[in-house]
């Protein structure tokens, strides 16, 4: 009935058996209890379920178990393995970027992947990168402000990979550059 698949989830190799049309978002939330990624439309039109597969942000509601075989999956729970995820999250938190927060983890996943490849992105780049994520509470301005603050921090040329010690520096820079 179920099909064996092997994949890496948040840095851990896993094997399981699951019907091939099980969706990744349902697998995460209902079988593994990993509920940080949210299911808000189920058809790939809101981005709340975003996860990384092989380093790229994808909609977990569009990915089925047969597509997970061999994949390297990072959910919002495992995002901190990306060195700059803390900076992104901190900048968004300090900007009070989100309200109800149900879309937040999807935005963070997409933005973290984008700023990894485009540190120092400008507002229009960030807007384009976030076109697939819907937020109903904020009108996006606060998210843009937080995202641009994160981009400014990440664009610093001599910026080290943040350790706990350098986090406070990063946050001061966010303050100063507002």
């Amino acid at each position: 009935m179920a099909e064996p698949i092997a994949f890496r989830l948040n840095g851990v190799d896993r094997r399981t058996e699951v019907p091939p049309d099980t969706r990744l978002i349902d697998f995460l939330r209902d079988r593994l209890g990993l509920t940080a990624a949210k299911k808000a439309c189920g058809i790939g039109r809101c981005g709340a379920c975003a996860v990384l597969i092989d380093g790229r942000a994808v909609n977990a509601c569009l990915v089925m178990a047969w597509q997970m075989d061999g994949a390297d999956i990072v959910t919002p729970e495992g995002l901190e393995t990306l060195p700059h995820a803390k900076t992104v999250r901190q900048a968004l938190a300090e900007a009070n970027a989100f309200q109800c927060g149900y879309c937040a983890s999807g935005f963070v996943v997409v933005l973290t992947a984008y700023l990894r490849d485009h540190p120092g992105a400008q507002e229009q780049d960030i807007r384009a990168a976030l076109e697939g994520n819907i937020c109903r509470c904020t009108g996006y301005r606060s998210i843009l402000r937080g995202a641009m603050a994160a981009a400014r921090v990440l664009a610093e040329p001599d910026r080290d990979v943040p350790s706990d010690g350098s986090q406070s520096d990063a946050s001061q820079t966010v303050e100063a550059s507002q």
Partner: protein
Amino acid sequence: MTTACAGMQVVRPVTAAEALACVTTGSARLVAGGTALQLDWAKGLPRPDRLIDLGRVAGLRGIERSAGGIRIGALTSLGALERDGTISEALPLLAAAVRATAGPAVRNLATIGGNVAGRTGCLLPALLALDADLEIVTQAGRGRKPLSQWLAETRDQPAIVEAVIVPLGQDTARWTHRKVGLRAAFTPSVVGVAGMIETADGVVTAARLAVGGGVAPTRLHEAEALLAGEALADVDWRALHAAIEQTVDAPDDAFRSGRYRRKVAANAFVHGLGGTLPGRVPHRPRPVPRPCEPPLGELVLARADAGARWHVRPDGPAKIAGRLEYLTDRRAPGMLVGRILRAGIPHARILGIDTRAAEALPGVAAVVTHRDVPGSNAFGIVVQDQPALCFDKVRYVGDAVAAVAAVDAETAERALALIEVDYAPLPVVADPEQALVAGAEPVHETGNLRRSLNFGRGDIAHGFARAAHVVEATYEMPRQMHGFMETEGGYAFVDADGTLNVCAGGQHGRRDRLQLSRILGMAEEKIRVVTSPTGGAFGGKDELTVQPALALLALKTSRPVRLQLDRAESVIAGTKRNPMTIRMRTACDADGRLGAQQVDVIADAGAYASLGPGVLETALEHACGPYVVANVQTTGRLAYTNNGVCGAFRGFGANQMAYAVECQMDRLADACGLDPVEIRRRNLRQPGMPGYLGQTVAPTERLREMLDAAAADPIWLTPRGLSGDSTEIIGVGMAMNHQGTGLGTIPPDPAGGALRLAPDGAIEALLGLDEMGQGLLTSIQSAVAAALGCGRDDVRPLTGDTAKAPESGSTTAARGAHVVWRVAETTAPVLAAKMLSAAGAMLGRDRQGLAIAPGGIVELHSNSGELLLTFAELARALPPDQLPSAATSFEFPKSDYFEGNARLIFAFGATLARVAVNRITGRVRVLDLHQHTAAGPVIDVAAYLGQIEGGGVQGLGFTLTEDAAMRDGRYLTGNFDTYMLPGIADTPESMATFALEDLDAADPFGPRGVGELGIGAVTPAIANAVADAIGLWPERLPFDPERILDAVERP
């Protein structure tokens, strides 16, 4: 190579020939990225028996450049194409098309092969214009053929697209690409166009024009022929426009007409290839506005300016890290999964419900129907007209008929399909006007007129007779969907002591508990309702949603049950904004002074009343806006129909009425030759006047100040007219609003709360309000810290749980801010006195010499700030039953008018919008949105700013893109693929929020809530800006781009 499974089989061939061989048996589907599957299945397309995964087929990958062109392997994702330097450099037209297709995360999955092979993909116009070829494998073998030829052929045999080959054209070729959608980005395509012109010595040597995306993908050969061989300078663009309009084969659909698609395609080609757009650019002179100073003390709300008033909300970091558990996130061993059976038809008598097969399905724990409802099978905040589970008939497609609890979601879904309901269809009442015609099919036995309101003052006949100018218009407004990201849901369980716990997002736990107690025939004390945290509500979780089904299932099974609507179910079942038609006739004298106004409102309740009566009352309470009109007559009717249920939604009727009133004001200004600011200034109500209904209103009226703020706003003076690239016409508009807070004089409006020192030393703030995103927790921290003198971090809010927090009333009607502030102001001095007495006793000091400070107790006027005692030390030293606390309860402040529902406290605003009206598409883009507000002291800067900005963009959606349209009682939109919530690309280029905080000296009411203020004046500001640009006031929401285009083109 195959894996068998029950249901669906996935086949993983490694060659194209193997893949084709798999297609021949049973129902099969070739799959690459698979991004279309969920959408197709959600629309009801059958699931295939087998999926043939092309991912392992050799030769389908890579981007290779050669002399003849670029070969793109079919499995190349759109994301990879977007990132590929060769494509962006050599094929900018294709790169533009890729960026306009889907959204970034979908593009990481979707492939070019899938986009092409589906035959409707948004890349097709570009690939046709680029004259692309396909490498295709069929059972006849491998071959290469032009894309245009392949699209024209019938699909009589399976084919696998292996690669797309795009020739490298002339470097200097002129090209254009435009995807026109329903919103700015990540949108279904209304029409897509792509064109390419190659020239030599100024003469067109090759022209390829193609359309697709919403119309059949095809080259436009007749139009191409008008270009080929012509000197570019001599092209007859008018003839080209006409040829395109005549040749594009475009259908009408639920969202756009074929005529619109043809016209837009022609405009896009003509403009994109260098021609001149048809139509005129209206010259709209405007009276020179009087210079004006902004009101003294108005703040711009921004983090940079907020300084120490900017606080990170306490629940922010956990939400951003994904660590915050919503009520729909709860998973536990043994927890059942619930599902609700919806009517699926708009109006029918129920002849029988047979649940035996469902109950017999292994894994099903319980099925409930109306037979399981022990109490009164009826709920509703205003009137109890909605069954928890239908028994005699169903009145809309989303009506709940039965519910199932099973071991998992799949079993629950299978069980739903096994429930047999025998229906006798009834005539469908689909229109509120028709519902009120004599002899219309009754939706309820009480008749279809749910509420009727009449109000008059003065003599309108006299008023209109004396008028110099009269404007009359009918404003139509849609069924806006709340679109909260967390759909309705939660979990329920029964405690060992028999207490029923229902934990589901809501806006008033105690009222939910009252309603459940009626349905369940159970004492309220035996029910606990948890309503926070909620992932967005905006009014849409004010009424009961899933709670009755959850409760019935938990009680019947004695097991925990979770249940969350999927989006498609939320769309058909959930509450919406009442569609309204407002007919308004307004008169003024030659100086612009209003003399008479007549207003008639008809509102669609949908199948049940919910808060629709309140919405209609509130709309009519704002029928003259903030203006003085001596002669008024208003009528309002709320009709039952078989449409989706409507009720509370941010703005609650006031924003709908403001749209009509504020457009009328600009129209009269236009008629009088007055500046829009000046006509408002001549008609504003003055502080201290009776309210619209004659009621006493609270002090701190700030209308004049808001008008000054608008008049002084820099965007009021920005240039208007044609944009630099001549594609847009810029206009600026403004509108005012005022919004009553609280429920009004008629409904009970209890409030209250408490503070206490908890055993661990936290200052607990107990409020039965709900955190839905608006920043309740941060506001409580701010208010309590300010009133008590402790630190924000010392405060622990306890909210949204009937077992923990007292009655505070509903988290609606912008009432929360006042409740939080007043609870803090009232209880903090009492708590402080008790804490200082206890501390004094412990320290052996006079309590008069002590004070509360962040973290604990200090010496009064202490310079060092040294803590004599921490709150934790104080709490530990006291017996648990002697921990200090203070509570209060009160009725939300009410006015003195009881003939109708009247508000006492108002907040005020003025909104300015600068818009661009697109001459190609007729779409309106908001460039700048400035919102001026006056709502008393700002409790928390970030929360206030968030409410105004968020309300602003919700208003923008209501105005430009959102409509849950229905036909014959069925929704035409099923999910976020066609329901167009604003995306980030729709949000204005700039937004600014301003607050005027001061209160009149005698004002006892403190901060006003701003949950509704931000949406209030957005629609009319945008509409007035459109009129400023093109001379047309759109009278229907969301704006119809076709009508706007027609107005622009009118000679």
